[in-house]
């Protein structure tokens, strides 16, 4: 079974999810099945982590022809970058089934399908395969928001669908373009990412194809100004869906840029890196300031998440090893912290029947453990040293300063912007006096606390002793940097990594 | 020679179109459609004769079969419509109005 570990991680949840959809299972049974399935995935994920050598290159590869006449293959594999994105999902998913007890059966089933599809999108080494999984992971999201969402779910669904479908179609066109170019240059069909990376792309068509890819991923990340679907979708979606969207799916956008765009479009990427970096920084500031104006706790967290995604994406566009490693590290760090925050917000909503910050208060006194866990996740989210958030943000800011001083300085303001809204929210929700509504709030039960504990510990461990993680990320990040280095030097970006000469007096 | 048949066919066809467009009685419309089908049959047979091949005649037979089947179905629909509304005026049936 272990040689097909990636296939298992992809298709087990999809099959279980489909069966659940068809069978008339009860809500509890669906949750239990989901828990078991995601638990198996978690175990496989842990084995994967320890079986991963970290020497660079793809591991656990599975390659089979799918449509040889068009060069489409079933091609899976993980490297140091995808491993962590994959594991983030594997680690966080069981939590959803453990903690979110009030979702409907269809929601649990769709969650499972999304999990499998996301794993597929992460591991795919063939662009057509990637596209299939990419679409497959989006479909259940539409259903979950549209069927099980909040009162304004339909506009939110239409918005997210318009955006993501527009992006996906452009990406499909770009994928086909790449295949055709490969055919003209090498005389055979192939959509393998590794082979397409060797293409020589020139001219306006290449820029258009690059735009097609970047638009699809920028919408998913989301980069400013393509973020408007996010607050609505995150707010209206059921808590579990919001969790999946924010914690894992948004990261796949960043991951896909690193994995598919950088190797193939190195010249275009280097040329437009500054523009994209600006977009990331502006998004970070814009969404961070927007968060202060929110009264709905989920909407505030949505903007916070968008703000952090801006700086996360910035790390990719800086094209140096520190920033890129920081980004990949931050993918995991942000997934854990924001994921936990959204889950907690979901629990608050379930128990208090409100998301309005003004109607809450004094929860820290009622539920110290809940408040403590929330505080740890919050501190990680604002990048306090000792939590995972600091390492990632520090590396990204450091890299950004090298890439472009002004952008580095602006990126640094995330330190200030983040605490403003987070502390404001924490004050209104957890401090101050309890009211009639919050007086009945019960603390986490022992099982819930135990369920959250591993993630909370992970946040702390990744902050205190991140080197084992970084050691696995760095070689893969180096390979990606190697792709853009020549192009970036042409475009005059400072990406020097070795032989750095201290300035002379 | 052949042209005459074709011209007749076109004239019949146009008459059928005119009938469909201008008349409001369901039966008249239906008869106009039949006229158009028969115009097509005439063209088929004329051309079959010209090319000395049986294909056209086969097609004509096919069209007649379809027309018969269609007549049975359409008349049933018309009877139902009439039962429903008591009228045979096509302007009454404007459910597709946007």
């Amino acid at each position, binding site marked *: 079974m272990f040689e097909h570990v990636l296939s298992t991680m992809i298709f087990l949840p999809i099959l279980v999810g489909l069966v659940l959809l068809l069978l008339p299972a009860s809500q509890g049974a669906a949750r239990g099945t989901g828990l078991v399935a995601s638990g198996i995935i978690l175990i496989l994920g842990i084995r994967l982590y320890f079986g991963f050598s970290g020497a660079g290159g793809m591991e656990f590869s599975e390659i089979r022809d799918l449509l040889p006449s068009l060069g489409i293959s079933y091609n899976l594999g993980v490297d140091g970058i995808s491993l962590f994105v994959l594991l983030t999902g594997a680690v966080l998913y069981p939590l959803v089934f453990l903690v979110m007890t009030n979702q409907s059966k269809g929601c649990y089933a769709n969650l499972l399908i999304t999990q499998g599809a996301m794993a597929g999108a992460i591991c795919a080494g063939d662009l057509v395969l990637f596209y299939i999984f990419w679409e497959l992971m989006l479909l259940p999201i539409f259903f979950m928001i549209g069927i099980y969402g909040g009162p304004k779910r339909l506009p939110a669904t239409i918005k997210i669908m318009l955006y993501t479908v527009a992006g996906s179609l452009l990406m499909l066109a770009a994928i086909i373009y790449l295949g055709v170019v490969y055919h003209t240059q090498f005389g055979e069909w192939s959509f393998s990412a590794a082979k397409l990376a060797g293409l020589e792309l020139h001219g306006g068509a290449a820029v258009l194809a690059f735009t097609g890819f970047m638009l699809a991923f920028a919408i998913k990340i989301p980069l400013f100004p393509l973020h408007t679907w996010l607050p609505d979708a995150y707010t209206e979606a059921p808590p579990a869906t919001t969790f999946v969207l924010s914690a894992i799916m948004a990261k796949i956008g960043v991951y896909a840029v690193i994995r598919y765009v950088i190797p193939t479009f190195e010249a275009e990427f280097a040329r437009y890196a500054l523009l994209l970096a600006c977009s990331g920084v502006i998004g970070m500031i814009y969404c961070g300031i927007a968060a*202060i104006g929110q009264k709905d706790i989920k909407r505030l967290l949505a903007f916070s998440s968008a703000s952090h995604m801006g700086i996360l994406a910035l790390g990719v566009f800086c094209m140096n090893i520190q920033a890129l490693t920081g980004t990949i590290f931050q993918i995991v760090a942000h997934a854990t912290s924001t994921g936990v925050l959204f889950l907690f917000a979901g629990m608050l909503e379930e128990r208090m029947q409100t998301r309005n910050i003004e109607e809450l208060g004094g929860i820290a*006194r009622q539920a110290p453990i809940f408040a403590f866990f929330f505080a740890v996740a919050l501190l990680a989210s604002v990048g306090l040293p000792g939590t995972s958030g600091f390492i990632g943000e520090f590396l990204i800011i450091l890299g950004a300063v090298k890439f472009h001083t002004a952008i580095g300085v602006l990126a640094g303001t995330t330190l200030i912007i983040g605490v403003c809204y987070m502390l404001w929210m924490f004050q209104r929700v957890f401090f101050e006096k309890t009211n009639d509504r919050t007086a009945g709030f019960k603390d986490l039960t022992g099982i819930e606390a135990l369920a959250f504990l591993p993630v909370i510990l992970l946040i702390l461990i990744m902050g205190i002793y991140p080197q084992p993680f*970084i050691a696995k990320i760095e070689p893969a990040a180096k390979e990606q940097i190697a792709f853009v280095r020549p192009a970036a030097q042409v475009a005059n970006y400072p990406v020097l990594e070795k032989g750095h000469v201290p300035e002379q*007096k | 020679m052949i042209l005459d048949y074709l011209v007749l066919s076109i004239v019949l066809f146009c008459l059928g179109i005119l009938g469909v467009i201008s008349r409001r009685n369901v039966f008249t419309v239906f008869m106009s459609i039949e006229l158009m089908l028969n115009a097509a049959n005439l063209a088929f047979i004329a051309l079959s004769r010209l090319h000395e091949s049986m294909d056209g005649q086969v097609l004509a037979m096919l069209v007649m079969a379809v027309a018969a089947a269609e007549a049975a179905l359409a008349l049933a629909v018309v009877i139902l419509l009439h039962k429903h509304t008591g009228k045979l005026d096509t302007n009454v049936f404007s459910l597709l109005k946007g």
Partner: protein
Amino acid sequence: MEQSAAYLGLIPLLPLAGATIIGLLHLSSCQTCKLSERTYGILACIAPILTFLFAIKVFLDLHGLPVEARQISYQAFTWFKVGELDIAMGFFADPLSSLMLLFVTFTASLIHIYSIGYMAGDQTFGKFFAYLNLFLGMMLILVLGNGPVVMFVGWEGVGLCSYLLISYYSEDRANVLAGNKAFIVNRIGDLGFVLGMAFLFWAIGGSGFDYISLKANAHLLSSTTISLVCLLLFLGATGKSAQIPLYVWLPDAMAGPTPVSALIHAATMVTAGVYMVARFSFLYSLVPTVGLIVAWTGILTALVSAIYGMYQDDIKKVLAYSTVSQLGYMFAGVGLAAYSAGIFHVFTHAFFKALLFLGAGSVIYALHHEQNIWKMGGLRTKLPITYWTMLIGALALAGCPPFSGFFSKDEILYLALATGNPGIWLIGVLVAGMTAYYTFRMIFLVFHGSPRDQGLFDHAHEAPTVMTVPLIILAVGALFAGVLNLPAIFGGGQVVSHWLAPSLAELHPEASHETEILAIGASVVAFFIGITIAYRKFGSGAEVPVFTGFASFAYHTFRINELYDLLLVRPYKAIGSAIEYFFEPQVTDGPVQLTTWFYRAAGTVFKLLQVGYVRIYAIYMVIGLSLMSLLLSQSLK
């Protein structure tokens, strides 16, 4: 050569472990199964006292080494390593950090003990001590970190504890707002710190990013880079050490429990900025211009906050502004490259300011949380120990010879004159007089005259032993700490300065004896003038004043909070609201709205064609077919 010593890693670990254990005990306890306060108190005091013993060991170990080699370090593990960036979680002690270590652990131990008395009966007693232990751990990381990044861990960690402890009484919105303010203002400073680190790293950090490597490579930097880095780091210091323009959080921070004010907001955390500048003395000493900016910022802060201090009516606010003012002196010292003088003032200040705050805490405790000095009076007889110890603290703060504050403050003022900055010196002397005035205004109002509120006075009682003993110990320190650095003119050997010398890149200006005597004379005169005015006005009873004009302006701290609110907070919130109510729905949502608008418009147009009559559809068909046949016949030609 530096020596390795694993126990350095243990020093911050002990209080952190203490915090974890106490925190877990607190979290897992319920109303009925609570541990007794006594157990918590003892558990909490273990770590600070042990670290104090370790601090002594560090001092002795360093002392046993030859002067040039007084460094010990311990590298626990590689923290993170990416490309040329290689950050170790390492600890490092040299004379500078050992001095900091000694007084931090010393005052922390005393304040932990004091808190057992002060916090008695508190609902969340365990939580308080968990925070306090956590603070100590973070402070020790700050002091012992072997490079700027590790220092930053402690730097932010103490900020977090400060936030948690300011908003400790979290039911009251004002307290939490004060906590938020402290955290956010500190974060503004931290931005400077992070950017400073980033610039420094890209300049010379590639070959090692700890103090030793940085010091060795500092000569490779251009002076522009050094100035930039030093200014950015100083921005960090103004946040943490409450200097212009970021001092506004410290007075509000008095919302926390009084022992917290004593430990964090007077003795230890707020001096971290001074420590940082001294730590980076190898950079600051290369750019005297930046040093002057630091010095002037410091002395102006000292002046402004001394003015505020003269008009406050809350006993803790008076002390808070005096802290800001004294921190200003310290920055004046380190700015003028008189690092040891600045650090020495940090050292003595820790004793007398912790003493004053704990004394104030004892007064507040006695008066059931009344903090307004205009409701006190005549407490001398009721609280004798508090009175005498606070008097010593006040004399030290006011700079009365031979109390500790006199020597340390005088050293800074003398060096201001010796380095040719008479402006700084003059303001410094003025502030010295004002300090004497407001300190004794407070002492006279609280302890002398007749009681202003008889009800409060009657119920007042001296604090329990667990609180008075730390007061007495600190009073001894406030009395004699100055002797440690007695200048040559009084026959002393400047022991502290010599001890610190290997850690600091200090300049030693040459100045005549006359200058030194002038400096001392002026300080003493200023002290006497200040205390005389205070005695005249408040010595034997005074009525609650009505502030008008300048006094009212100063009472409201020059309306600086309102100004910041108007210039920064409100616009920020307004932009936030504008985004939510205008930009989001109107501007960035444009593509979506455009798409839906397009579909709607197209629908409206096509709707007109859908008349619903079969006949009309037939016409469309005919038109379509005709066009198609036409096209077909055209293409066949």
